[in-house]
């Protein structure tokens, strides 16, 4: 093994020495490839593993935490929700349609591998500056890809977020989340067992696509990144649908001992993981592998990331039954090996041993680094700014800005109503999906505010968890658990690693206080191009339960004459706000901090108000502050609002700074609710009981947003500003 070989395989000198030590001899080329992918950042989590164990992963609702294909939580009635989020960032930048499509395909397989039927998809997308030359192409491609895959398989996309920021110019983020429902006694895991039991390959045939995809996703980009296009996998959602139905049909039988999908690092990773979890060995004969093309080498077959493939260990007496099911669905089925007691992975092709590696050397003994960290200095100061534009223009400009505007152009390309259980559409607080055959629903949201994380990784991470929690609470659901996708730059830079560690601490602290444990997740590092890193983006995907569909709440069900109440106090914090970003083009100050105890208490109050049917609609306050929250409620319902600030601020309009804070401040843990006049006193009493500030700030009225004495904007003007951005950018007629 010369230096050129291991460098080309993404290993450094120390790792090469470790390889020789673990293997006890020179590797074959196939072994070299296997080490290369298993020890890649993407598969081994070598920079993050040490820190991830600090996450809070426990709770009585948790059936399976991180470490399996997906997390599993108890949702009552003998049912479990199985969910996870995963990144497909690097491939989506190189080839947006296929990169995003296979991201969706991969996350769905993680869910049905565990025995759950997928019932909802979500996604969190980040693109570069809206005016950057590649943004339109990448947005259009990624959205078509997500729709193209999810729509065809037939799983509704019910919520998500889309953000734009120049730090993503060279590295977009595509984070896809899937949620499935399973019988609590019928969860399938990946630990192999039973010496000589057959190892079965099902699904699409193996081709040359995606070779070294995991390694590609473990490095930075430069100007030549597009040459990596062949490492991007190609998706076939039709095969995925057949594989899904065949797997779920087989899972009704008592036939599967272990099952694992072939994701990053393909057959290599699935075989090693199954053997490692079961503390057994595995022997594969590649002659039996279903192949898409002739003359594939063992190296290529072991590293291929062809999609829509699964590996299973079956009970020997169920082999025939299983084969019949897969043949009925027209999906390949082939016994390609067996479980052994060697604790090694042995790969044979054309009677030649191509690889024979101790499993522990690839898995448990993979490199792990505690990299140097440096904490980012937080500058709390805001540069003084002045503007002459009117309040009306400010409001319309904010609604018209890329990070606030309607994302309807995006979500209209996703089938949201298939399965006929979707209750609330995107654009609300969270996606709401009824659980078939019950009066319950899941409330689902994914959230992160990268401009906060960039200023203050710890507070930003707390905020991401809290906002996700708040979105779920706003629908009337009890938050249950989260998954995450931690997207960062190059971990070898102490400042990036410092952000990462602060993020872990922030997520941990928030999830402990809110009893919102992490049950699955994924880390995506090296999101950098020519040494420019993305903003830290720890996407949080949350799941909550609405126990009774009669007690759910939305942002658009207010009634004319309702009283509008601000819960959680007046806004003050303008650091890193949308207001300053849009109006002053300023990225300054600290992120708003989240008082987690207040978050919990305010949320519990909201759940109580919804349960008691005191409120007609609820919306949490986030990006853009109070006025954007109210504007979104108006746009969603086409019913206006009259806002009156109680403290005579309007009379001292010279003090604009104070008004900006109240209108656009992004202080956390706050909600806007609307209440019929006969319920106001009950509502205020509850707020007093919970010791939460409640200010009556106005009432619902028909046709416009009127802020007393300052500005009147018609509903239509609000809608036009909010809705027109993406259609005109993407040149829709």
């Amino acid at each position, binding site marked *: 093994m010369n230096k050129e070989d291991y460098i080309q395989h993404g290993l450094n000198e120390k790792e090469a020495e470790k390889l020789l030590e673990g293997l006890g001899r020179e590797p074959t080329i196939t072994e070299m490839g296997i080490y290369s992918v298993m020890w890649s950042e993407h598969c081994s989590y070598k920079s993050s593993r040490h820190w991830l164990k600090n996450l809070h992963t426990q709770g009585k609702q948790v059936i399976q935490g991180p470490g399996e294909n997906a997390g599993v939580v108890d949702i009552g009635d003998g049912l479990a929700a199985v969910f996870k989020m995963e990144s497909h960032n690097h491939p989506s930048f190189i080839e947006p349609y296929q990169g995003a499509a296979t991201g969706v395909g991969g996350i769905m397989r993680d869910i049905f591998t565990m025995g759950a039927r997928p019932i909802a998809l979500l996604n969190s997308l980040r693109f570069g500056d809206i005016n950057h030359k590649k943004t339109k192409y990448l947005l259009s491609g990624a959205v078509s890809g997500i729709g193209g895959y999810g729509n065809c398989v037939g799983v509704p996309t019910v919520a998500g977020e889309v953000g734009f920021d120049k730090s993503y110019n060279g590295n977009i983020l595509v984070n896809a989340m899937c949620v499935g429902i399973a019988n609590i006694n019928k969860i399938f895991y990946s630990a192999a067992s039973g010496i000589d039991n057959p190892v079965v390959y099902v699904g699409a045939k193996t081709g040359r696509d995606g070779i070294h995809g995991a390694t590609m996703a473990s490095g930075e980009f430069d100007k030549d990144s597009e040459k990596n296009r062949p490492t991007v996998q190609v998706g076939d959602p039709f095969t995925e649908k057949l594989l899904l139905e065949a797997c779920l049909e087989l899972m009704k039988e008592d036939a599967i001992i272990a099952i694992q999908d072939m994701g990053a690092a393909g057959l290599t990773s699935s075989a090693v993981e199954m053997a490692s979890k079961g503390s057994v060995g595995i022997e594969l004969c590649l002659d039996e592998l279903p192949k898409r093309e002739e003359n594939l080498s063992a190296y290529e077959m072991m590293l291929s990331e062809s999609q829509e493939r699964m590996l299973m260990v079956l009970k020997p007496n169920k082999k025939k039954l299983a084969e019949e099911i897969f043949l009925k669905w027209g999906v390949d089925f082939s016994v390609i090996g067996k479980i052994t007691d060697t604790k090694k992975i042995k790969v044979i092709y054309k009677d030649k041993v191509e690889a024979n590696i101790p499993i522990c050397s690839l898995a448990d003994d993979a490199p792990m680094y505690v990299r140097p960290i440096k904490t980012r200095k937080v500058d709390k100061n805001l540069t003084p700014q002045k503007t002459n534009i009117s309040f009306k223009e400010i409001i319309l400009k904010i609604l018209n800005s890329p990070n606030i505007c309607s994302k309807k152009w995006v979500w209209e390309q996703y089938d949201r*109503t298939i399965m006929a259980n979707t209750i609330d559409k995107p654009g609300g607080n969270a996606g709401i999906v009824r659980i078939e055959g019950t009066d319950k629903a899941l409330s689902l949201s994914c959230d992160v505010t990268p401009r906060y994380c960039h200023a203050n990784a710890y507070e930003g991470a707390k905020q991401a968890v809290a906002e996700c929690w708040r979105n779920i609470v706003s629908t009337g659901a009890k938050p249950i658990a989260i998954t995450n996708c931690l997207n960062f730059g190059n971990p070898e830079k102490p400042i990036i690693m410092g952000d990462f560690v602060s993020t872990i601490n922030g997520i941990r602290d928030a999830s402990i206080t809110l009893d919102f444990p992490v049950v699955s997740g994924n880390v995506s590092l090296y999101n950098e191009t020519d040494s420019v890193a993305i903003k830290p983006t720890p996407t949080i995907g949350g799941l909550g339960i609405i126990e009774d569909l009669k007690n759910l709440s939305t942002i658009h069900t207010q009634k004319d004459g309702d009283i509008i109440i601000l819960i959680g106090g007046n806004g003050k914090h303008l650091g890193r706000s949308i207001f300053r970003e849009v109006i002053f083009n300023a990225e300054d100050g600290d992120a708003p901090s989240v008082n987690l105890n207040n978050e919990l208490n305010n949320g519990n109050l909201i759940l109580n108000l919804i349960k008691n049917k005191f409120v007609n609609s609820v919306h949490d306050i986030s990006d853009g502050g109070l006025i954007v929250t109210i504007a979104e409620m108006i746009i969603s319902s086409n019913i206006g609002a009259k806002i009156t600030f109680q403290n005579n601020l309007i009379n001292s309009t010279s003090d604009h700074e104070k008004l900006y804070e109240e209108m656009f401040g992004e202080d956390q843990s706050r909600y806007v609710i609307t209440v019929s006049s006969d319920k106001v006193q009950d509502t205020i009493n509850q707020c007093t009981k919970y010791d939460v500030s409640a200010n009556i700030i106005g009432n619902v009225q028909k046709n416009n947003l009127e802020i007393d004495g300052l500005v009147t904007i018609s509903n239509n003007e609000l809608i036009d500003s909010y809705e027109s951005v993406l259609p005109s950018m993407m040149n829709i007629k």
Partner: protein
Amino acid sequence: MDVSLIIFPGANCDKDTSLAIKHITGKHPKHVWYKETTLPKSDLVILPGGFSHGDYLRSGAIAAKAPIIKDLIKKSADGIYVLGICNGFQILTECGLLQGSLIKNNSLKFVSRNVRLRVIRNDTIFTSNFKENEDVNMPIAHHDGNFYIDDNSLKKIEEEGRVAFRYIENNAKHSPYNPNGSLNDIAGVYNENFKILGLMPHPERAIDKITGGDHGAKIFESMFHSLSQ
């Protein structure tokens, strides 16, 4: 009423349609695998939505060649009722049971939204529970829903009153009310004897107020009402 639902590989609205039938009639339809050669005794056959055979080649084109379709064509000549929803509509045009074709949406994008529809006539077994010219809402979700046909045939369809549903104005801003560019805003058509209906909207997703409306239920109620007598 005996209902059969043909299942093609890649169909993904079969479960929803089955549940909608169960919801209205109390009984699940019979599921018929596309490789079968004979339909069971049925008053009505439904071709559900989805992506039969991945929509490869052309939406509905491969499914139109399925063994069961031969028998469907034969039985429809004998007077059986047929409903094709979305991909089912595409299959019906591909196999010739309905005229015209469904080409790519004029936006060239998949579109999923709630549309406003006018029920043009209420004297068929599919629409008897609607009022004449009743306006209803139903979801659509398709990439190829742009109904296209030559001028003479279109004229004939109009003259014979074979347009079942039309997209109409819905006050939505920044998106056209006709979601796909279909000729004469056609969302659904009948064959010559009004026994076969194809439509792009998904009535099976509109049977419950809580999931966005129940106007689609009337199609199932109409069929049940008409065929159970």
